[in-house]
């Protein structure tokens, strides 16, 4: 970025050349993040929409698929992720008050939670793999294994597999967002340790937080849709 800026001497170091002041820069970044999150809502939203429509067309198959998921692990993971949202909120609070040590501490805690979540998710995936629930040629067609009543048509088996297509696509996409979040948080930790975030400037930290809360928000909807709604059947 070039620096041929007439009033450069008035500008704080964090201020990019094309903004007038830090307030404008901060608001732009914040609004940009929200716009990006709106995009993300529609990105996951297309999948939610397709999932809802297919669940409506074959509830039996989707219920059978859902029964393979472990509610215990799902609940634990929800707990972990909600907690990580809390620690992230605290990290931003520390940003607002300009306390680098607390920023680093809470960011690391959040990263720890994220890692636990991903670990649990991976073990769930592994369990699904062992039960031959990965969609594709290896997907089991054994009705008993699938928990379907004997004598259901082929379509129901296909729709059960479809449940897992959506399960893996949605949770996989969600996990992918978490991995990116982990990377961004690691970067924030580095910046925070250098004391880059002060009461006047903590925009990157805030944007990371918004992103992380969004990841949490997606899970708040994924968890009941995938694990819970057919539990009573």
């Amino acid at each position: 970025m070039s620096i041929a800026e007439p009033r450069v001497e008035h500008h704080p170091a964090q201020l990019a050349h094309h903004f007038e002041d830090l307030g404008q820069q901060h608001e732009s970044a914040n609004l940009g993040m929200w716009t990006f999150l709106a995009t993300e809502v529609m990105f996951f939203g297309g999948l939610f929409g397709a999932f809802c429509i297919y669940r409506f067309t074959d509830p039996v198959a989707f219920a059978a698929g859902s029964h393979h998921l472990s509610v215990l692990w799902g609940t634990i993971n929800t707990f972990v992720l909600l907690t990580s949202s809390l620690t992230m909120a605290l990290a931003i609070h520390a940003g607002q008050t300009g306390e680098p040590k607390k920023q680093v501490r809470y960011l690391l805690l959040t990263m720890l939670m994220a890692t636990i979540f991903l670990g649990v998710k991976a073990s769930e995936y592994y369990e699904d793999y062992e039960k031959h629930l990965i969609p594709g040629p290896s997907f089991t067609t054994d009705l008993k294994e699938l928990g379907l009543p004997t004598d259901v048509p082929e379509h129901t088996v296909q729709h059960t597999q479809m449940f897992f297509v959506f399960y893996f696509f949605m949770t996989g996409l969600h996990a992918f967002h978490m991995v990116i979040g982990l990377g961004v948080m690691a970067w924030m930790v580095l910046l925070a340790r250098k004391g880059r975030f002060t009461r006047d400037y903590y925009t990157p930290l805030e944007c990371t937080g918004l992103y992380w809360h969004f990841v949490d928000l997606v899970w708040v909807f994924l968890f009941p849709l995938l694990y819970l709604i057919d539990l009573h059947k």
Partner: protein
Amino acid sequence: MNNQSDHTALHDHLLPLSAYFKVYAWLMAFLLLTVGAAYVDLGRLNFPVTMLIAVIKGVMIMLIFMHVKYSHKLVWIFAGASFLWLLLLIVFSLNDYFTRDLLHIPGK
């Protein structure tokens, strides 16, 4: 809307820490509630109840954790619009699925 005068000061939505813990406690309570409710057969109500709890949790996260409650009304609009659009997608698609075969004309 004048840009310069409109830039909110950076420090004005510093919440007390207790606010975050309070929301966290509520989130935990709703988590237990939704898992519990899932085991009870409420008939047709299971789906709406579960989704309602999810929406409540989501709104709490957005309002407090994501500071929407203390943000510019623009943020309210953006946060709301994305969900409105998602609703449009789902409602108008489902409208097709719910009304198929209403007239007993195959394919219509």
